[in-house]
């Protein structure tokens, strides 16, 4: 039995399919930022047109002057934004039909034409801002110089004794076990948590310090003068610093996390280690229900939040005919499972809800459930409700036929047993088992059903069901004909879970992620190291922000601002709630009215008076703006992968690391890089203001 609960993430990782939408939103936000920045540059240049050094568009050689076509592009983007603004005004004045031109208020609503316009405007603005950067990167940037600056950063950090910080982290591990609560079932989880959480602040502060202080220090000591008077592009300095400190942090992280892995492996007791040092690669099915009020939902018991649904089993006074099933459809599974020797693992962790208070003896005992693994092609009906009835018949028929064949085996065994020694009897028993298994396999192939009954469910534990590989062989029979016979839409495997007949009425709580196939298991250590890639993402994030800030602000301000942004990023979920208007009492305008009028939070506020309309519109605008503003904060929560490691779930390279960590990181950092490019290029190196 596993000591783990299954993997509950507050937010599911982003999926490939969500990527285009996320990209669109990114274009809107990054593009809007670019448009605002370009507008600011234009305005300040216009205001300072008599002073060439403040007129960024005309600094010869420094800033690539906006080529005419880029300027036209910018006007196009401004025109798009103007459409949106006009639509807002139109809406205020009650012009009909302009609502479609407005962007949606938050990410939970369907997108509109307005969103499309915003996306296009953003894409154009971003292209305008990016073109000079890309031209420079292609034509001027030299890796040799960036590398030289990176090496310099290494030497600076090492000779400045920065690496002692990594030593300090080793100290933490010496004493960490004082703080790790000792409880066998949570031991590994606690260890992983302590290790991850103690590494995070130290590395983050280090990254922020390195990033925030290096360039301002160079400016303060004037050592930057000897660098920028070489053929060094200003942006190369930023990139060189990023590469240098980034690789230093990477090496440091690798060393420290390897040490901490050792620490975890040594610290966890053998018993806990045997059961929990794993990284499962789960395959999740799709959950639906049979016999409940709605197919998408089981019965509610009014407990917990909406996460789980409940099914009951027949009790001694109800008919056995009407059963409730939780059904998981597995669209596909790896075909090599059929060739395996060892059994295929399924895991589940269900919740038990007792309807009646049983006596104390019963209290600790769980309820028993039956799992039926079926190839859905065996059913005559495509409807799962009918299938569940068919299933009962098929199983009954299969068991009858099978037991007929068991009989001669048993008889042969009884006969041969007479007068044999203990060892010989053991051999014979093994022989009998093997023969019986052959029969089982034959019927599995015939009926394509594998059923396990009477498995006891224990609250808050992850349990296992093992399915023989021969069952998968059965499910794969004629697999290549699926497409041609139009059976492709059927899942390859359907699992019916039902509650066995019990003394008391109890309910079984299930959620989609509660039951999954574990075809493969990876070693714990590699998952642990993969988890540190999430940490690595935050380090790079903080380093890059600090560096970008320090191209304009002084070291201390950059440091504080970076930490501030990071903390904002941590409370992103709360801010999203504001943006999506989920808070009680409405937005700031409505709240202000409520306070001045003394209205309670629960009071209604939806009469269509002109005043209320104005207030609602203001709040919608506000919430829309908050939505834009929070997109400027780093989403640090998504890079925290310790739950995967602690709960023993493999961190997927593609779905978790690439799609949910590295790509969003790149998307977030790109605007910062562009900002750093321009700030560095526009600054007067010798005139710090």
């Amino acid at each position: 039995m596993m000591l783990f609960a299954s993997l509950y993430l507050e937010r599911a990782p982003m999926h490939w399919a969500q990527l285009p939408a996320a990209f669109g939103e990114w274009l809107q936000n990054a593009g809007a930022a670019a448009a605002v920045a370009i507008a600011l540059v234009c305005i300040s240049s216009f205001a300072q047109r008599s002073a060439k050094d403040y007129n960024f568009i005309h600094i010869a050689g420094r800033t690539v002057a906006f080529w005419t076509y880029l300027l036209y592009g910018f006007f196009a983007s401004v025109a798009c934004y103007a459409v949106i603004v006009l639509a807002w005004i139109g809406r205020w004045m009650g012009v009909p039909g302009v609502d479609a031109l407005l962007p949606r208020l938050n990410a939970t609503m369907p997108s509109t034409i307005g969103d499309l316009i915003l996306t296009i405007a953003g894409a154009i603005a971003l292209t305008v801002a990016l073109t000079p950067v890309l031209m420079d990167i292609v034509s001027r940037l030299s890796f040799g110089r960036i590398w030289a600056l990176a090496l310099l950063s290494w030497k600076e950090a090492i000779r400045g004794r920065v690496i002692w910080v990594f030593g300090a982290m080793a100290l933490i591990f010496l004493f960490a076990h004082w703080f790790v609560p000792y409880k066998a079932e949570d031991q590994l989880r606690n260890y992983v948590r302590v290790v991850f959480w103690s590494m995070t602040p130290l590395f983050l502060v280090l990254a922020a310090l390195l990033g925030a202080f290096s360039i301002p220090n160079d400016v303060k000591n004037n050592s930057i003068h000897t660098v920028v008077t070489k053929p060094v592009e200003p942006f190369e300095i930023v990139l060189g610093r990023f590469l240098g400190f980034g690789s230093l942090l990477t090496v440091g992280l690798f060393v420290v996390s390897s040490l901490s892995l050792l620490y975890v492996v040594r610290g966890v007791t053998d018993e806990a280690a045997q059961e929990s040092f794993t990284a499962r690669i789960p395959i999740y099915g799709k959950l639906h229900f049979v016999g409940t009020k709605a197919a998408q939902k089981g019965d509610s018991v009014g407990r917990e939040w909406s996460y789980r649904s409940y099914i009951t089993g027949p009790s001694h006074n109800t008919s056995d005919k009407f059963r409730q099933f939780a059904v998981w459809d597995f669209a596909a599974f790896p075909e090599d499972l059929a060739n395996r020797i060892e059994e295929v693992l399924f895991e589940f962790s269900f919740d038990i809800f007792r309807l009646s208070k049983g006596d104390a003896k019963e209290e600790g005992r769980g309820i028993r459930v039956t799992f039926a693994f079926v190839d859905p092609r065996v059913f005559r009906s495509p409807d799962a409700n009918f299938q569940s009835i068919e299933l009962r018949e098929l199983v009954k028929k299969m068991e009858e036929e099978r037991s007929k064949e068991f009989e001669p085996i048993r008889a042969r065994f009884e006969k041969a047993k007479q007068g044999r020694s203990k060892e010989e009897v053991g051999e014979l028993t093994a022989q009998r088992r093997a023969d019986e298994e052959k029969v089982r396999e034959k019927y599995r192939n015939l009926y394509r059903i594998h059923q396990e009954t009477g498995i006891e469910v224990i609250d808050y534990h992850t349990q296992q069901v093992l399915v023989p590989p021969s069952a998968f062989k059965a499910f794969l029979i004629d697999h290549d004909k699926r497409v041609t016979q139009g059976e492709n839409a059927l899942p390859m495997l359907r699992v019916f879970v039902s509650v066995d007949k019990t003394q008391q009425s109890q309910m079984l709580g299930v959620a989609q992620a509660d039951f999954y196939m574990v075809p493969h298991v990876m070693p714990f250590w590699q998952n642990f190291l993969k988890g540190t890639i999430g940490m690595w993402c935050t380090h790079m994030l903080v380093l890059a922000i600090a560096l970008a800030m320090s191209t304009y602000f002084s070291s201390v301000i950059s440091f504080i601002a970076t930490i501030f942004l990071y903390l904002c990023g941590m409370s992103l979920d709360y801010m999203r709630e504001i943006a999506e208007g989920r808070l009680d009492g409405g937005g700031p305008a409505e709240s202000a009215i409520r306070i001045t009028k003394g209205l309670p939070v629960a009071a209604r506020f939806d009469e269509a008076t002109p005043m209320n309309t104005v207030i609602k519109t203001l709040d919608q605008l506000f919430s829309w703006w908050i939505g834009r503003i929070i997109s400027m904060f780093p989403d640090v929560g998504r890079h925290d992968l310790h739950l995967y490691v602690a709960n023993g779930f493999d961190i997927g390279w593609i779905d978790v690391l690439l799609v949910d960590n590295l790509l969003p990181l790149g998307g977030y950092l790109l605007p910062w890089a562009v900002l750093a490019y321009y700030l560095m290029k526009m600054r007067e190196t010798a005139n710090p203001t």
Partner: protein
Amino acid sequence: MIDKEVVVETRKLTKIYRDFWGREKKVALRALNLQVRRGEIFGLLGPNGSGKTTTIKLLLGLLFPTDGDALVFNMPSGEVRKNERIGYLPEESYLYRFLNAEETLDFYGRLFNLDPALRRSRAEKLIETVGLKNDKKRILKEYSKGMRQRIGLAQALINDPELVILDEPTSGLDPLGTRWMKDLIVKLRDEGKTIIMCSHRLEDVQDICDRVAILSEGELRKLDSVKSLLEDVFRLELRATGVQLNDELRRDLETILAKHGGKLEFIGHPTTTLEALFLRIIEESKAHPGRRYMPEKAAPAPVAAEKVPEELKTHIK
């Protein structure tokens, strides 16, 4: 029209320092027009705060002009690519203090994308030239000011530049070092490089510069070749050995001069410069350790105070 021989040109170059809000703080340079030609040593001369460093920073693109243009090799000064052909020694050597001399030169060599072999051979030669061979493994933090100035010059020459810009190259150097630096600058010119240097040490400028621009309060006061600036065509100098100064000699000279329509203004023993004296003492003490200096031989030619033009007189302490 592009004149190949003009390496640096400024047109109405103006720099106004401003505060964060764009308010005017200081007009550091006002409508400066200059042309520096290939192969000359050009001196920027002026008292503290007259805008010498500002001019140099504008040429290098470290500052942006408020008005006017600064062209180097016919490129605007903000253009990064011009730096390929420029060497720059800042006012104080602003180098990375945690690197040693070798690493410093290697680092700056990499910034020019020099290939490793060339980088190494140049670094070695330059370290030898600036006389830091024995200290090349020590980090710059431990260097004395003069040593830093030397390594600073070495890094300015790592790319074998066509144009060398030196901001107060002799500051922090002892008279020996000053002499060495001046000789080196002349040698660089003789190799065909163009040199722009600024200084408020008049003797440096006088000794080596071909042309000087005299700045004061951010404005150009005078621009000419040193020779024509210093030459006093109304006066005549006469120097002689083997005679004693007495009234008879003075009278004789006066009659001769009167005959040619002139007038004797001054007759007396020349004084040497402290620099020349210092150099001789050091030389002597190297040749004869432990002996005190005795003035035996004739001192080198003096520099008479009268020769300094009016503009500079006020600034001589």
